[in-house]
């Protein structure tokens, strides 16, 4: 049985932890609102971009000469995986979920006998991945000192990827990030960006024929690199919102748990205080009786 003093100290320490988690939750909640807004504002751009590319792809007559970014190199040998994670921890399963999904994919790729290359963005993902897959990492990026990630950062990564692609360093590129669904749910997501994944499921507006100026393939050549940066930027925004959402829920839970612990410890504390009082009383009474 711990002494009264020990219990008192523990209660105090748990309470101060609770204060910290509570503050973190508040901060996350405030940041979440902004991040969520940004993510929602960013969605139309990437969606429309996808739509345009879809329309363009459908009107390409000669798929053999289409840009490689769209149709791929025709090989299926080297995979480039871009893992987007946060730079900060204490956000529940946010980073681990992305890494878990990424690692299952890495494992599959290696088992299939294909070459694997990894680019990590954000320091937390790097920490988790480098233990098992350190030798595959070709680049580590981190934007820790940036408060708000803008399109420029996404473009840096996009240009890097395109440069590698043009050097024939990989055949397929997969992006890992968390999709922000709502505050409690974030879904880790693997998206193939090279060659561009074109969903042909909604073919309602397929019959539209477009006039192109300049030619289709020229537009595509301009648009596809842009699309890659756009997709990365979208992933960034989704990730930022997910991180704050995840942190908020995690910190909310932590605050609640700390509260429960304080309650339990307080009961313990009161019990042992009562016990010591009773003990003292017994000692006095039995002392008086023996006289």
């Amino acid at each position: 049985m711990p002494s009264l003093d020990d219990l008192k100290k523990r209660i105090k320490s748990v309470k101060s932890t609770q204060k910290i988690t509570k503050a973190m939750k508040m901060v996350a909640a405030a940041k979440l609102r902004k991040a969520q807004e940004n993510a929602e504002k960013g969605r139309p751009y990437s969606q429309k971009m996808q739509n345009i590319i879809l329309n363009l792809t459908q009107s390409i007559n000669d798929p053999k000469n289409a840009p490689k970014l769209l149709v791929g190199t025709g090989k299926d040998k080297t995979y480039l995986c871009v893992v987007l994670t946060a730079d900060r921890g204490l956000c529940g399963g946010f980073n681990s979920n992305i890494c878990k999904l990424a690692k299952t994919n890495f494992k599959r790729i290696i088992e299939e006998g294909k070459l694997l290359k990894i680019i990590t963005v954000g320091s937390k993902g790097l920490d988790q991945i480098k233990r098992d897959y350190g030798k595959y990492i070709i680049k580590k990026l981190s934007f820790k000192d940036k408060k708000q990630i803008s399109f420029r950062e996404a473009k840096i990564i996009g240009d890097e990827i395109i440069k590698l692609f043009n050097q024939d360093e990989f055949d397929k590129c997969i992006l890992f990030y968390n999709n922000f669904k709502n505050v409690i749910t974030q879904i880790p997501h693997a998206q193939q960006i090279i060659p561009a994944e074109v969903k042909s499921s909604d073919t309602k507006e397929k019959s539209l024929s477009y006039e192109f100026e300049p030619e289709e393939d020229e537009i595509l050549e301009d648009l596809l690199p842009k699309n890659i940066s756009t997709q990365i930027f979208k992933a960034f925004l989704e990730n930022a919102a997910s991180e704050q959402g995840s942190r908020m829920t995690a910190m909310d839970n932590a605050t609640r748990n700390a509260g429960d612990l304080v309650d339990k410890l307080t009961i313990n504390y009161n019990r042992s205080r009562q016990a010591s009082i009773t003990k003292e009383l017994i000692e006095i009474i039995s002392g008086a009786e023996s006289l």
Partner: protein
Amino acid sequence: MSEKFTVEIISPDRSIIKTESIEVRIPSYEGEMGILKDHISLITFLRPGIITIVDDKVMKFFVEEGTVEFANNNLLILTSSADELSNFKKTSLETLINEAEKKFENEKITDKEKYLLSYKIETLKNISQ
């Protein structure tokens, strides 16, 4: 029948404007282009220049690049940079022009970049006058 169609300018981080218009003029890559209602479906991209949206009042935006899609009387402009002309300040304009001119003098750039830059400088100079 109204003679209007919808115009939307979207940048990666926000929707800049969504409105209706009678006529929109865009600096397409191969030349200025005016779009009216029931224009044929079109996809093109932009060079630096000014987008003019004509409605009850006229709005002008400076863009550096972008992609345009027109379909079903919906004009969609995707661009990473679009600023309303009234937001430009004289001093910032001058720095922009200087930067562009410096890049222009650099001999390593390609003809395409030169072409785009020359338009950028020209448009910016026009604005600053």
